[in-house]
């Protein structure tokens, strides 16, 4: 046992020192060697984190560490199953982002400070690693704040661009509002325990209204970080403007910290609760999934589209977790495990394929200097390996078999289908709606990614920049390839991943480890799930059938092939103007969901002065503004400004008045301190 813990401690030490090397190299060294050392430090740290997570999941060890580096409570660290799983998520995405970042920042030294970028990136990875293994509230909150601030600095990297500062400010505002909720939640949870340890919180018995308040505060705080509607407005602003490997990290890992926190507080520290907790999480998940994908469909900025898809996928994760929490409250441990496993699996998968997609978008951005899909096209010939990786990512996020997105969405479906076992009829009748909305989300996601991949990479280039694009440098390709292969492996190897997730869940909230029975054979069935399927067999079957078909065609069919022009009804020549555009592709869905989008349309036609039948020019403008900012945030901000304005009256500028305030405050405090007697 001690040797297992020793290995775990050593890996943790390697991880921390890797990041430290990265930070120092970024600040001290210069040139290509400096960047390489920074990236190597981040890569070493991330790989050690990944190894640590896999080690703890594999051996079941739960190492704990107490360090006196923080005042008041000291720094307490502990790696249990859930922490180990999230260490894997952090390590995997961090490693790919580090490798990619080395190539990405090669030519950006003139535009922004690479030292700050490299140092903050390593700091972010370090704070993420420490955060998931924190064992008392102060460590958790401190590393949470370091993570938020590091992400803020990273979002501000390209601060000379117009929207970047606004995006970063929105991000900072929402994340700090969430942080306030989290501080309140942890203070309530610790119930007077000065060490504020998680162990103490688990043991404490709190009255039901306090538990409900803690849950709501945790949901607000962690939901703001995760990007649940309506707290998601910062996501489509902040993620596109950050450098691409930072966007990959933020979308892949940072928002998952919200998922981690919610699970930690609601299931582990509070030990589960009434059914409405799971119901609220499930409902928020459904709403986020639908609205996220609907707004993603209408986006033509490649990275904003991916950011909205992060909102959608966090919604799907919350659906799985909400279902799990609900089953837990109804005393159905097998189904609860299924729901939680589905949510966690989707967390890992989303980190992989969203990271991959953001890295691909970054390659495209670097090659063509534009994120607008309407100016791209034909990149599959100019950037074949990026295109292949982006295709794998698109297929994975569209939940197409046999990749990983399909497996986790299938698991979420099975968890929701298990809702038939819930004894309460009004809850059971809501489950089919959740299933239908998940299916709609999935279908719309496929449509969105056909658009994203097809318009960006296929057909003819729509602008000069796209026509001269060059393939990404080898390190960037390597970063993408790592994640693409992982997507495939996580899909086909589901029968290995699911038992590991079972280990991660076991013991949380009193879920008995014996309820976690997973068939280790290749069929990947899960006890309690109404259905079986095997992505490995599907992959083998598809490959075999493909081979057989190809051979049969070679032998039996005509083999001639001629290259000709695209059919154009007899027109002469083809230009990119004759291709379909992204706006046109999404237009039918825009009409179908017009009530959600409320697009504004502006049409002006210039006629020839001589006759109304000859049109000189037509200008059409249509905009879709998500109503959250206008209807929800603007009134709230107005209220805050009004209150602040009124409060200004307190600061009249007179020193005598301030002295009077201090005296009154002192009197009130003295009275309040002595009053209980």
């Amino acid at each position: 046992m001690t040797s297992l813990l020793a290995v775990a401690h050593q890996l943790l030490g390697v991880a921390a020192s890797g990041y430290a090397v990265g930070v120092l190299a970024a600040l001290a060294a210069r040139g290509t060697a400096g960047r390489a050392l920074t990236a190597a430090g981040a890569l070493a740290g991330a790989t050690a984190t990944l190894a640590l997570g896999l080690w703890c999941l594999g051996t079941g060890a739960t190492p704990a560490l107490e360090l006196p580096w923080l005042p008041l409570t000291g720094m307490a660290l502990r790696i249990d199953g859930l922490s180990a799983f999230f260490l894997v998520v952090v390590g995997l995405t961090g490693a790919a982002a580090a490798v990619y970042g080395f190539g990405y920042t090669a030519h950006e030294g003139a535009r922004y400070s690479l030292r700050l970028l490299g140092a903050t990136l390593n700091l972010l990875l370090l704070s993420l690693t420490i955060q998931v293994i924190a064992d008392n509230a102060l460590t958790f909150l401190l590393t949470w704040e370091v993570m938020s601030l590091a992400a803020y600095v990273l979002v501000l990297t390209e601060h000379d661009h117009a929207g970047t500062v606004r995006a970063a400010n929105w991000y900072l505002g929402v994340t700090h509002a969430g942080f306030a909720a989290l501080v309140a939640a942890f203070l309530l949870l610790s119930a007077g325990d000065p060490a504020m340890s998680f162990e103490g919180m688990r043991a404490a018995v709190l009255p039901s209204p306090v538990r409900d308040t803690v849950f709501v505060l945790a949901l607000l705080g962690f939901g703001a970080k995760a990007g649940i509607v309506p707290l998601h407005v910062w996501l489509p602003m902040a993620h596109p403007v950050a450098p691409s490997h930072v966007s990959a990290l933020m979308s892949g890992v940072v928002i998952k910290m919200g998922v981690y926190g919610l699970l930690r507080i609601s299931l582990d520290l509070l030990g589960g609760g009434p059914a409405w907790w799971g119901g609220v999480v499930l409902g928020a998940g459904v709403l986020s999934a639908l609205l996220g994908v609907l707004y993603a469909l209408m986006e033509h900025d490649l990275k904003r589209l991916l950011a909205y898809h992060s909102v959608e996928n966090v919604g799907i994760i919350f659906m799985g977790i909400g279902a799990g929490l609900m089953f837990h409250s109804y005393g159905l441990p097998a189904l609860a495990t299924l729901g939680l496993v589905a949510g966690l699996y989707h967390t890992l998968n989303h980190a992989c394929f969203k990271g991959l997609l953001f890295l691909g978008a970054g390659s495209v951005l670097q090659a063509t200097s534009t994120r607008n899909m309407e100016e791209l096209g034909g990149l599959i010939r100019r950037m074949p390996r990026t295109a292949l990786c982006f295709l794998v990512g698109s297929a994975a996020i569209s939940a197409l078999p046999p990749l990983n997105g399909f497996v986790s969405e299938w698991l979420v479906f099975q968890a929701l289908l298990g809702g038939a076992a819930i004894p309460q009829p009004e809850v059971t009748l809501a489950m089919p709606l959740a299933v239908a909305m998940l299916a709609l989300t999935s279908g719309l996601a496929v449509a969105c990614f056909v658009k994203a991949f097809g318009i960006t990479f296929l057909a003819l280039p729509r602008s000069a920049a796209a026509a001269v694009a060059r393939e990404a440098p080898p390190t960037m390709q390597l970063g993408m390839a790592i994640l693409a292969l992982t997507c495939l492996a996580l899909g086909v190897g589901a029968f290995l991943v699911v038992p590991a997730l079972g280990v991660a869940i076991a013991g949380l909230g009193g879920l008995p480890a014996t309820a976690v029975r997973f068939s280790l054979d290749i069929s990947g069935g899960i006890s309690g799930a109404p259905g079986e399927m095997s992505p490995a067999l599907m992959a083998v079957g598809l490959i075999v059938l493909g081979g057989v078909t190809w051979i049969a065609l070679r032998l039996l069919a005509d083999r001639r092939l001629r290259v000709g022009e695209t059919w154009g009804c007899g027109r002469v020549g083809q230009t990119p103007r004759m291709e379909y555009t992204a706006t046109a592709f999404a237009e039918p869905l825009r009409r179908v969901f017009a009530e959600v989008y409320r697009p504004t349309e502006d049409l002006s036609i210039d006629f020839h002065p001589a006759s109304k039948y000859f049109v000189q020019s037509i200008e059409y403008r249509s905009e879709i503004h998500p109503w959250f900012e206008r209807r929800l945030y603007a009134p709230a901000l107005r209220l805050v400004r009004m209150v602040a304005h009124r409060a200004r009256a307190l600061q009249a500028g007179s020193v005598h008045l301030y002295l009077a305030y201090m005296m009154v405050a002192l009197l009130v405090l003295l009275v309040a301190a002595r009053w209980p007697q």
Partner: protein
Amino acid sequence: MTGYVLESAQVVLALVLAPGLVGLVRWMKARLQGRRGAPIWQPYLELRKLFAKQVVVSENASWIFHVAPFGVFVTAVAVTLLLPLLTVPLPLDPAGDLLAVVYLLLLGTFFLALAGLDPGSAFGGMGSSREMTVAALAEPTVALAIFALALGAGSTNLGQIVARTLADPLAVISPGHLLGFAALFIVMLAETGRLPVDNPATHLELTMIHEAMVLEYSGRYLALIEWAAALKLLVFFTLLGNLFIPWGVATTLTPASLLMAAGALLVKLVVLAGAVAVLETRVAKLRLFRVPELISASFVLGLLAVTSSFLLR
């Protein structure tokens, strides 16, 4: 071992039957419209012709264009491996359930839609856009139909669903079953590109959905795509017939039961083909922006199916 041999035979049977099914629907439509119509085996002749012809590929197309026909065909054949065509249970039953079937078909549509965008023509883009709209909007109804079936059977695996309904014959006329059948019938029309959603016989750009995506294809590629479309029709007919009315499906592997299963399957296919032919003759094609209304109607039917399955458990 016999199970695997039988499963391979089922796939071959499906491949052989599928073009004939399309030919049957066309022949029935022709007769209903007062024409003599091409013989039922016309699609086989078309496939033979296409396999012997040269392929012409657009100069703007990439490798996606070459891979997509294989993708569509292979996923359709993979689905027939999971289908309870003649017998249950199949040895490959644990490899995929009804959700896997739906997503495998979606994989084929994904590749076909990308191939529509690849040559850079406006027809292809339009076809892809419309196809993805219809496919996305049909997904919730399919999910609800699966939910309704899985409620009764306790599993989403096809073999289990058929076995459960065979064991409880009265379940066939339960409201949940009938409403689910109606919902899935409408989805079948949408997914296989039949009137009133899409006209499989048209080449007018304003009315095409599936045909627009495959406009650039020729030769053996087009043959694969046409065959895959016919297979998809067979798959949906089999799902409608054998999941909702599983009489005749063999549970033992004796020659007598297999013959009866084949006969029952043919009867169901002919009846469903007749229904589709009558519908296609009587109903005009819906405007594209009216199709979501039709699919919403099927969604409501699906919702009612699930609710009645719950309440009458």
